[in-house]
């Protein structure tokens, strides 16, 4: 099947698509009566950009050996990934409304055994980068040209394991690994800059010998230019500056929207704002 199936891609310039996927995120979290709108809305533009041709993938053959891997280490942002995967045709769109319902392949945090379209189970923060590193090592061993993209949250990289991987990926010269930081400055208990500041973030990753880039994490055109970049012999770390809750005015930069589902009225208000 693999050789006949098409490589799928979204259109990064389609603003309506981005708006529609934001609506999908809110509707599925509303349906599940729980979930994380803030951090899903902050990383959706990153995911749309990645799946707009940067990442090679075949929705009818999720395990295609030549695919690029996307590991969502910040597993709580998975509604954004589900919205993108459904749009690409990995599974029917009506599955989205089963998010967090008993028996659904769309678990509250990704589960590769129930949904092979995701690359790994994540959700206990700080672990996805190590898993992504293992995938990148395997690709090198197999002399495959595929790349591994790993999306981490800013609160997440307070975990020590992230810094273990920050040390090891340059040692192994993993230039096929790109980490994207969804730098939305918020976590459950408050602003990440107050909870446990990550600054100076660029200097830290540079000091760990990564190729460090910065981009506006909502400017998809800019990301189409920045995210594919690689340098030989070193992994890449992209600081994507984002806004938690981006796209819904009453959610933007509001910490309380980290992990709360919108009620009926809030959903309607949000959808009206998104003009849907």
């Amino acid at each position, binding site marked *: 099947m693999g050789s006949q199936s098409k490589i799928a891609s979204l259109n990064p310039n389609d603003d309506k698509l981005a708006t529609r996927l934001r609506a999908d995120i809110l509707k599925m979290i509303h349906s599940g009566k729980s979930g994380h709108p803030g951090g899903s809305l902050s990383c959706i533009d990153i995911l749309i950009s990645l799946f707009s041709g940067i990442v090679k993938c075949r929705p009818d053959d999720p395990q295609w050996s030549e695919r690029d891997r996307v590991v969502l280490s910040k597993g709580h942002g998975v509604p954004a990934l589900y919205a993108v995967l459904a749009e690409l045709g990995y599974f029917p769109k009506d599955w989205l409304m089963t998010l967090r319902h008993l028996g659904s392949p769309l678990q509250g945090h990704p*589960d*590769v*055994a129930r949904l092979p379209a995701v*690359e*790994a*189970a*994540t*959700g*206990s923060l*700080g*672990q*996805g*980068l*190590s*898993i*992504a*590193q*293992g*995938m*990148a*090592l*395997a*690709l090198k*061993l*197999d002399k495959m040209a595929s790349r591994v993209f790993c999306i981490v949250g800013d609160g997440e990289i307070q975990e*020590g*394991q992230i810094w*273990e*991987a920050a*040390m*090891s990926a340059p040692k*192994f010269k993993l230039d096929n690994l790109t980490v994207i930081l969804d730098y939305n400055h918020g976590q459950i208990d408050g602003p990440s800059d107050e909870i446990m500041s990550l600054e100076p973030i660029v200097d830290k990753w540079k000091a760990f010998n990564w190729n460090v880039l910065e981009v506006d994490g909502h400017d998809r055109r800019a990301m189409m230019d920045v995210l594919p970049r690689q340098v030989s012999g070193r992994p890449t770390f992209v600081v994507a500056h984002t806004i938690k809750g981006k796209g819904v005015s009453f959610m933007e930069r509001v910490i309380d929207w980290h992990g709360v589902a919108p009620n009926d009225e809030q959903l309607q208000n949000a959808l009206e704002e998104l003009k849907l």
Partner: protein
Amino acid sequence: MKATRDSFGEEVVKLGEQNPNVVVLDADLSKSTKSIKFAQKFPDRFFQMGIAESNMIGTAAGLALSGKIPFACSFGAFLTGRYDQIRMAVSYNRANVKLVGTHAGVAIGEDGHSQMGLEDVAVLRSLPNMNIYQPADDEETNQILRSMVEQAGPAYIRLTRQKLPKVYDSNYRFVPGKWNLHTKGSRVALIGTGHLLHSCLEANAVLGGKFSVVNAASLKPVDTDLILSLASSHELIVTAEDHYITGGLGSAVAEVLAEAGSRTRLRRIGLRTFGESGSPEDVLKHFQLDGPGVVTQLEKFLAEKTN
């Protein structure tokens, strides 16, 4: 006499020769876990992760999710101390990772408690898809390692620092979930795992060789049929392990007996407190885990008044 960690070091090289997907990771203990032999033979398939076990376990999971068969090695205490990484990255991901924990139990001696794997079986036994094995000699180690490669899924092998006498030859067949009835006797069934099998064999010999002795190498799954058969034909079952009595072999046997409604008496030999430094011989003697210690404990159990 051969330490099961030495058996591992040699056998994993053979497995690497037979299967190009076998890779090995270590966290700065390759000279102690003996994974260094693989590192020397297959430098491109060996990953030195430094003193960063969490990252090693996650990396092993990523390798496994990409079709490799990674052996992730450290002291059992340090490996299973990263329980969240094993729980999530290995177990929940159904990742084909083989965890190799050496330096099992108080038998390591001088280094003392912090280096002793004493709760490794207990924590890993809680995971639904984790198989756990503890070999008693060289041949059994090799066979368990081969079966771990043949059987997909997460598994843990618990190995000794100290040398162990030979028990098996190549006619032996290790089967996951099956225990080996070593000597068939009556009244008492002694069930030992790893180096405690040798203590049980010694104790039985001292007491006239009239008891049954069983080698429990497969700690998960356990041999339910054999446990129940022993319960119906003996008046006392004694488990022996160099591990806390909570959550290990003794607990596993207790679960089977209780759920079956067995009234056969069970007594557990193992650790009830923290380990401590000393020569391996002195420490094993102190905790009554050597042959004479098992004799002492057994005599105490036999002297207990029963209703």
